């Protein structure tokens, strides 16, 4: 029954999509100034139906309707309620439905909120966006249908992977999708802009809030993923340069570049074609990312199950998008005259874009390189963290310095530099770095540089903040994001340098001493939970120097549906550092292998990212207040 409702609604939405495109072309032909009311109504129906369709699937998960294949493969009657719901989008088919919701709802909202803009531009945006919607709906209905039925109805589901039963992971896809799926709307708007020659300041104004929304949510989405990895995956890291992580980072680089270039387009009516390229690139990267992740061509700890037919469909769709975009740009490109003074804010925004493109190309290249070597030379190569860190970090040192100076620049021409102040800040940064590292321990040259430039950015931003405060200006969004970014790099650098990791074997009752710490294996017990059994260890951590006494309880969890073993880390998060222990048993022995980690400033890494995105939200609210 639910399956029928779901399928009907999907089919209905395909019809609505086609109808909207038809009505849109009709509207283009007539001479009226405004868009006819019935288009608004159809769009509202479209959004409503897709949401109901999604809720249908959610209900199917909640009541454990195993006649639906997706529910059968990804859920279980014993699963906790919250995770039954989040299981809806924790699989390929369900998450695609989430894609379609974002595409559809954003389409409607863009139509609603762009009333001050050219009619033809809005109509073409609607047309292109609906073509995207139809593309995904066809994919859903004919290849990856979340409402496919299995008969006879199984009595029980295959269960959801226990690693995916985590609050951070539950919220991770919705956040990310508002991010990179939301970028579809300015992809469509960019094409519409090219087709209708609606450019310049007005175009920038029509999309800037959308770029802000997608950028802010994308930032939070990436954060949620990292938090999940840190707390759930048990290795104490939060970023592995895994292909799936990279897939979410690539659109973020493009969005950040776009965010900055939009400012130039709006203020000075420059860089129009570059902005268009970035708009198109962001969503193209989003679809590319989804292709890489779901087609099974990449090896990753995060992959969905493999199915080449999915990959084929997405690749065809992606190719069409790319060719359409490229051909349109070739057709419409006009060379403009740029009068750029090297001493201006525009230049520094261009510099930001320059670095973003560098990061983008590096991460993209690293991610797809193994695919190319395998096809071209039949040779498999791994590209992992050492590559990305080695290539990106030295350039990032420069980037942070530019970031400190850029925002202070005036538009068009900067009359004077406060070189003196900059110099003082640089010296202060170096001295601070020296004292930090000298009193605690010594590290690689590059860590020193990245920490120095991070401190430089932090101090410059604080000075900037103070200036704004004195002038009683109310717009702190840019400073907050930049300051938070500086802190982020600083805390990551410090965390990397001052982390402690110890891997050793211990028997119950034994104690291991190293440096100032001692770890005692105090207790071991077996406990039964709703859908798993757990072997829980109790470890007492002592630090005699600091009068520290903490207990940690890592677990080995044995799940039945599906039959899996997971290792749950026990983490004690503190203001200054986290203590992290994972425990695994050693085969055929009474020993347990213990990994103990001390990770400074983890909390501040998360907080910094939240503030980066907060800057985006603040600017969004300020814009919304002004316009509406």
């Amino acid at each position: 029954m639910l399956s029928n409702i779901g399928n009907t609604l999907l089919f209905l939405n395909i019809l609505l999509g086609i109808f909207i495109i038809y009505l849109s072309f009709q509207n283009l032909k007539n001479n009226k100034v405004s868009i006819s009311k019935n288009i608004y109504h159809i769009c509202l129906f479209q959004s409503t139906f897709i949401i109901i369709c999604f809720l249908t699937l959610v209900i199917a998960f909640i009541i454990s309707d195993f006649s639906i294949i997706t529910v059968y493969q990804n859920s279980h009657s014993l699963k906790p309620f919250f995770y039954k719901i989040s299981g809806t989008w924790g699989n390929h088919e369900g998450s695609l439905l989430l894609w379609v919701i974002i595409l559809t709802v954003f389409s409607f909202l863009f139509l609603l909120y762009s009333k001050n803009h050219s009619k033809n531009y809005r109509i073409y945006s609607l047309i292109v966006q609906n073509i995207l919607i139809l593309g995904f709906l066809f994919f859903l209905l004919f290849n990856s249908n979340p409402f496919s039925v299995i008969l006879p109805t199984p009595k029980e589901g295959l269960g959801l992977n226990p690693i995916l039963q985590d609050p951070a992971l539950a919220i991770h896809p919705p956040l990310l999708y508002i991010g990179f799926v939301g970028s579809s709307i300015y992809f469509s708007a960019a094409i519409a802009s090219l087709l209708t020659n609606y450019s310049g300041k007005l175009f920038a104004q029509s999309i800037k809030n959308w770029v802000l929304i997608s950028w802010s949510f994308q930032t939070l989405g990436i954060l949620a993923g990292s938090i999940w990895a840190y707390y759930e995956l048990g290795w104490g890291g939060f970023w592995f340069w895994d292909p799936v992580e990279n897939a979410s980072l690539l659109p973020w680089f493009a969005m950040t570049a776009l965010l900055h270039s939009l400012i130039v387009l709006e203020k000075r009516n420059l860089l129009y074609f570059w902005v268009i390229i970035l708009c198109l690139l962001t969503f193209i990267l989003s679809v590319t990312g989804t292709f890489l992740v779901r087609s099974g061509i990449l090896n990753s700890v995060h992959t969905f199950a493999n199915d080449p037919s999915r990959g084929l469909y997405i690749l065809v769709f992606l190719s069409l998008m790319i060719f359409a975009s490229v051909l349109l740009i070739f057709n419409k490109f006009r060379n403009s005259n740029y009068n750029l003074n090297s001493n201006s804010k525009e230049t520094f925004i261009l510099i930001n874009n320059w670095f973003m493109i560098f990061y983008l190309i590096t991460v993209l290249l690293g991610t797809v390189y193994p695919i190319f070597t395998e096809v071209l030379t039949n040779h498999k190569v791994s590209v992992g963290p050492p590559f990305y860190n080695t290539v990106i970090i030295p350039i990032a040192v420069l980037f942070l310095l530019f970031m400190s100076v850029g925002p202070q620049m005036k538009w068009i021409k900067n009359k004077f530099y406060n070189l003196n102040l900059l110099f003082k800040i640089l010296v202060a940064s170096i001295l601070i770095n020296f004292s930090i590292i000298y009193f605690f321990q010594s590290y690689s040259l590059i860590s020193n540089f990245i920490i120095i430039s991070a401190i430089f950015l932090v101090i410059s931003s604080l000075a900037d903040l103070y200036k704004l405060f004195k002038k009683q200006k109310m717009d702190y969004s840019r400073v907050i994001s930049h300051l938070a970014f500086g802190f982020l790099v600083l805390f990551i650098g410090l965390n990397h340098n001052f982390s402690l990791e110890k891997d050793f074997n211990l028997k119950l009752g034994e104690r291991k001493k190293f440096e100032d710490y001692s770890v005692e294996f105090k207790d071991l017990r077996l406990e039964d939970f709703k859908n798993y059994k757990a072997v829980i260890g109790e470890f007492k951590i002592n630090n005699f120097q600091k009068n520290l006494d903490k207990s940690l309880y890592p677990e080995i969890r044995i799940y039945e549906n599906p039959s899996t073993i997971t290792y749950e880390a026990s983490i004690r998060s503190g203001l200054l550092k986290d203590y992290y222990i994972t425990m695994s048993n050693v085969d055929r022995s009474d020993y347990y292998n213990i990994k103990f980690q001390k990770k400074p400033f983890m909390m501040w890494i998360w907080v910094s990212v939240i503030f980066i995105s907060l800057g985006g939200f603040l600017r969004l609210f300020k814009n919304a207040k002004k316009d509406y």
Partner: protein
Amino acid sequence: MQKKIIKLFILSFILFIIGVLFISLNKNSIYDTKGLVGKKITKFGLDHFSENKMITAEDLNKNNFTLINFWASWCGPCRDEHSFLLKLNKEKNIQLLGINFKDKKNNALEFLNDLGNPYDHLARDELGKHSVNFGIYGIPESILVNRDLIIIKKFIGPISRNDYDYIKNIVRE
């Protein structure tokens, strides 16, 4: 004219990338070491299973072919390939070196008593460290080498009927 060349270049580049992605869709992304043939196995010293001596490269240089087989009593698929190993043992041109991997002596002996001992030489690698010298990453795994200890073929997983026929053909030439 210059613009046309640039456009053509960009389009061909994109076509190339999409082409590669399309081809890669049909490729298997699970890695294996089957391609690492042609290399020579250099000096190694394995503990003999029961006697207090070492098995080294010299022991294998006398044979035309040797099949080096890593196995353990706790390994299910090892039972599947055992019949083929016994058959291969009867072949003239090939000797079998069995390396018992991360196993207890009693369990290993029981396994051989139950299923038969196909090995001309039997060694043990209790900690598993020697397996790395042979490029082993799971069991069962077997390597076919010639007199000069050059790797002819690697068998990942249990020896199948096809593998058995292949080896038979090689050694009978």
